[in-house]
């Protein structure tokens, strides 16, 4: 019951916000998102008390092809749901004090997005999962298309076609899995059990991998990303980078690894190499980006490259690191894009050449921004460190030289992030930015929430590690061939 409530409450909220009119849309949406967050907190206590069984939902849906309404909330799903539902209030708060036309539609779509994302993370039936996966694309597509920047039409189309092409491959993959499955079902328990010949696993790997690789994105399937992040409205970018790309990394763990272990064993080395190349490639490009949002897009690309590399390292450190880093990256990247938005809101530019001296004018903002930057460069006692340490160690266990190469992110990350901070925030005030009002209450609240999580998770990551461990361990056992 709780599972259904968690899933459908945002859908109902989306409808209510749409009907509630533009004036109260933001407050209404915030209220619903906070209620959902409270529900999540309650779900965590239930989970701690009685484990994943309490969240099991199974209802036959379509007789033929056999599709069932199978939902489940294990530790891994719960972590992803926690991330989603924590970020939602922050994302909605970030839209306060901004002029948004057709606000009821906007916030309604954000909540619809929440519904779809939760669906992706808790669906335990292949086709049901696929439906949520595609459903998640719709709200963000409209958010970018209707509320985006000047180039939005072309950019959004590229994004849409790109990801849809990947998704169709995945759909095809699922159909083939169904075909190979003697039990004729999409149920994850069946899919985890079925035997697929090595040859078939080998090419099926690509149908799933490409879909996820576009979503994450893994280099070289990333060229939609920077443009989309830049053109989408801030909340859209936050949804995309903070949560939606985790659909890809989550799915690697949930669907690809355990179902196609032979395919993963065969192509994993190539995939991890791509990921690691992507880390360094994106980090180097990030060093010379003047547009703040472009820089953040490339930095995000580097981070998710490392997350994916940790997954393909196929060991518990890498997997745990990826889960921790999914959460950390989600929190940090939302914070970073929010800071970019705050800057844009005051100065109407995000070109770092035209910025500087903000720290003197807005000390509170400067401190919050700095802490988020530090989380992003993985300073110990911030959330980014735990993830990066485990991920790099996972990659090290996989291959020493690969970890040396991936480790360059430690240096390059500091270069591009601190350069950016220096150009944007430090220096003499007044030269380029004449005035800059410090944080409004909604910004203070949202950034405060993020900062607390950044430091809290850095000091005490155990709850997340403990939640994810059993699931990851059992998935890891399935990859042993």
């Amino acid at each position: 019951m709780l599972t259904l409530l968690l899933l459908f409450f945002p859908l109902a909220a989306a409808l209510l916000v749409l009907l509630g009119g533009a004036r109260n849309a933001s407050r209404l949406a915030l209220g619903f998102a906070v209620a959902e967050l409270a529900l999540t907190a309650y779900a965590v206590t239930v989970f701690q008390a009685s484990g994943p069984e309490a969240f099991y939902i199974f209802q036959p849906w379509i007789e033929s092809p056999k599709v069932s309404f199978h939902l489940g909330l294990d530790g891994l799903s719960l972590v992803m749901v926690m991330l989603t539902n924590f970020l939602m209030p922050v994302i909605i708060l970030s839209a306060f004090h901004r002029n948004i036309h057709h606000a009821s539609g906007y916030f309604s779509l954000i909540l619809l997005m929440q519904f779809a994302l939760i669906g992706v993370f808790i669906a335990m039936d292949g086709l049901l999962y696929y439906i949520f996966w595609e459903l998640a694309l719709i709200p963000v597509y409209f958010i970018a298309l209707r509320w985006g920047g000047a180039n939005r039409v072309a950019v959004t189309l590229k994004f849409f076609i790109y990801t849809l092409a990947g998704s169709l491959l995945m759909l095809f993959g699922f159909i083939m899995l169904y075909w190979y499955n003697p039990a004729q079902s999409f149920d994850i328990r069946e899919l985890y059990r079925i035997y697929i010949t090595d040859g078939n696993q080998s090419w099926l790997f690509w149908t799933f991998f490409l879909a996820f690789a576009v979503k994450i994105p893994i280099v070289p399937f990333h060229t939609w990303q920077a443009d989309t992040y830049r053109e989408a409205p801030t909340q859209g970018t936050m949804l995309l980078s903070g949560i939606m790309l985790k659909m890809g990394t989550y799915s690697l763990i949930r669907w690809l690894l355990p179902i196609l272990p032979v395919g993963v064993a065969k192509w994993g080395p190539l995939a991890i190499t791509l990921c690691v190349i992507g880390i360094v490639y994106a980090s180097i490009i990030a060093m010379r980006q003047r547009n703040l949002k472009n820089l953040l897009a490339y930095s995000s690309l580097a981070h998710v490259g490392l997350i994916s590399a940790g997954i393909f390292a196929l060991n518990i450190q890498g997997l745990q690191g990826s889960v921790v880093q999914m959460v950390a990256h989600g929190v940090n990247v939302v914070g970073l894009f929010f800071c970019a938005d705050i800057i844009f809101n005051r100065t109407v530019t995000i070109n770092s050449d035209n910025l500087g001296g903000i720290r003197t004018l807005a000390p509170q903002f400067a401190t919050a921004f700095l802490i988020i930057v530090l989380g992003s460069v993985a300073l110990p006692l911030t959330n980014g460190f735990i993830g990066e340490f485990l991920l790099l160690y996972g990659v090290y266990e996989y291959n020493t030289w690969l970890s040396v190469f991936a480790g360059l992110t430690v240096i390059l990350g500091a270069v591009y992030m601190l350069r950016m901070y220096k150009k944007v925030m430090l220096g003499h005030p007044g030269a380029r930015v004449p005035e800059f009002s410090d944080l409004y209450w909604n910004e203070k609240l949202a950034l405060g929430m993020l900062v607390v999580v950044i430091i809290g998770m850095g000091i005490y990551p155990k709850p997340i590690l403990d939640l994810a461990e059993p699931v990851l361990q059992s998935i890891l056992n399935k990859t042993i061939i």
Partner: protein
Amino acid sequence: MTDKHKTVEESLDQIRTTTFLGLLIPLLPLLGFLVNGFLGKYLPKSVIGWIGSLSVLGSFICTLILFRQAGPTDAIQIDLFSWIALGSIDISFGLTIDALTLIMLMVVTGIGFLIHLYSIGYMHADEGFTRFFVYLNLFIFFMLLLVMGSNLLMMFIGWEGVGLCSYLLIGFWFKNPSYNDAAQKAFVMNRIGDLGFLLGMFFILFHFGTLDFSTIEQMAPSLVADNGLLIAITMLLFIGATGKSAQIPLYTWLPDAMAGPTPVSALIHAATMVTAGIYMIVRTNVLFAMAPFTLAVILWIGVATSVVAAIIGLKQNDIKKVLAYSTVSQLGLMFAALGLGAFSSGIFHLVTHAFFKALLFLGAGSVIHALHGQQDIRWMGGLKKLIPITYITFIIASLAISGFPLLSGFFSKDEILAHAFQQNLPVWIILSLSSLLTAFYMFRLVYLTFFNDFRGTEETRSHIHESPWTMTVPLIILCVLSVLGGLMGLPVVFHANHWLNTWLADVTAPAAAILHQGHHISHTMEVILMSVAGIGAILSILYARHVYLTRRSVPESDEAMSGWGKVIYQKFYVDELYDRWIVAPAFKLAEWLGNVFDKHVVDRVVTLTAGFLDASGRTLRVFQSGNTGSYVFAMVLGIVVLFIIRLLI
């Protein structure tokens, strides 16, 4: 029965007290940081300064109490909680206080307190006063984690944490772009070392299954067979040390770091943080002792850094730059000691150096304070009478660092030189040379700053005044320590028993068991060496006196420089070299990858694929008309397709 019960109760009590005190040591500065950080804007300056200073004094007092109770073989273990635990890894958030940690704690909290006190006076007029104390307390907290961490990862928290504070404090005056550049350079160069540290940890974690110092120490001897592994581990850790402790090739950030306020230079870039690399190697001495190759590398890097930095120091005209290169040089000397396997000698010099180098920086700060920001010694001179306390303490510190007989630096330096003489004559010669250079550039600095006539403007001169007591008291205390610091390591020749070696014997025992150092040189030889070094130092000082006092030479202006003098003044153009061969190509590559390759090659490939996609895209566009209905339709269609496939099977 009751008696026994009572003693158990008492010893439990004892453990509780020590745990409590041990926890207070890092917590007090953290508390100071939090109070000043959150409530600072409501508090008057005087209160902020004292909160900052007294929190560190509190830690110092706790350290003293623990020190009084502890014996050299005791180790207090405080495990707070399991930090990162998964699979077979279990890294605890734990602290250890043993003999080595206690020494470091006394240096960090003791000198840390004095420098906090000094800062109350030094920073009183700065608009960032509160921020300064907030950062300074945070630094102390991280430094304490660094020296108290019971495993490598805990040490790494402190290690990067102090790097952050160093970054914040170098760029403290963040309106100045060149200061910001210096701060960023420091952070990035440290990060290069940190990657080495991180990879070293991975090797250890993988092969030992733990990062715990005590477990590593126990397990290491069983790894003797695997030479390559040990070399890899120790070399990687040493790379980390070269970053933090400013050794070749990663030393160039430290002179630039002088952009920070002078108390920062004294605390972070002389006495504490930059010695972290030495502490780290001594902490893991058993690994290094088993890797003779790495020890040789450390030795020669240390020797080279020591002499190169000393040469550069000869020609610098910024009072802080001279001291910065001197620090690099002295750190090189400490690394040379470690390379010779003389771990406790390295620590001995670390401690005495902390005394006199902190004093020199604070003295320099007092000079700069008196001259309202002037740092160029060409515009100083004749300050002897005007700021007498600063003068006297500065000159004593200079004597100490030069190795003037019986002052603290004399003993700690001679111990290292004696080890060098015994094991490796060329090293002894080079290090002795570097000592002579040290004595020379230090007294060049002394004579140019304090003697002869004032060379600045009359206006500046009229404002020169001695610093307030919060600044002079730390000078005096550090001066006493610089004189007497050698007592902790009085050699056997003086019929003492070298207290520090005895105190650290348990810490360095694992290395000692492996290295089997040969017989000590004879006492006669030791006395001869000491005399040679002492006389050399005095002659060098006299030569500086001749040049800069008697002949009244003043370094030429920047434009007039030429030849080798200019090359040395320009620090052998190493910064330019790095910029040209590393930084510039990296940025060029970034530019090309971002603007050309990513846009035109990667995206082109995508467009080609899109040729295929376009066809499907056109078809798709039919039901991408933009309304939700068509998506539902698409989905239904998908299900129908599935249904058809199902029928076909």
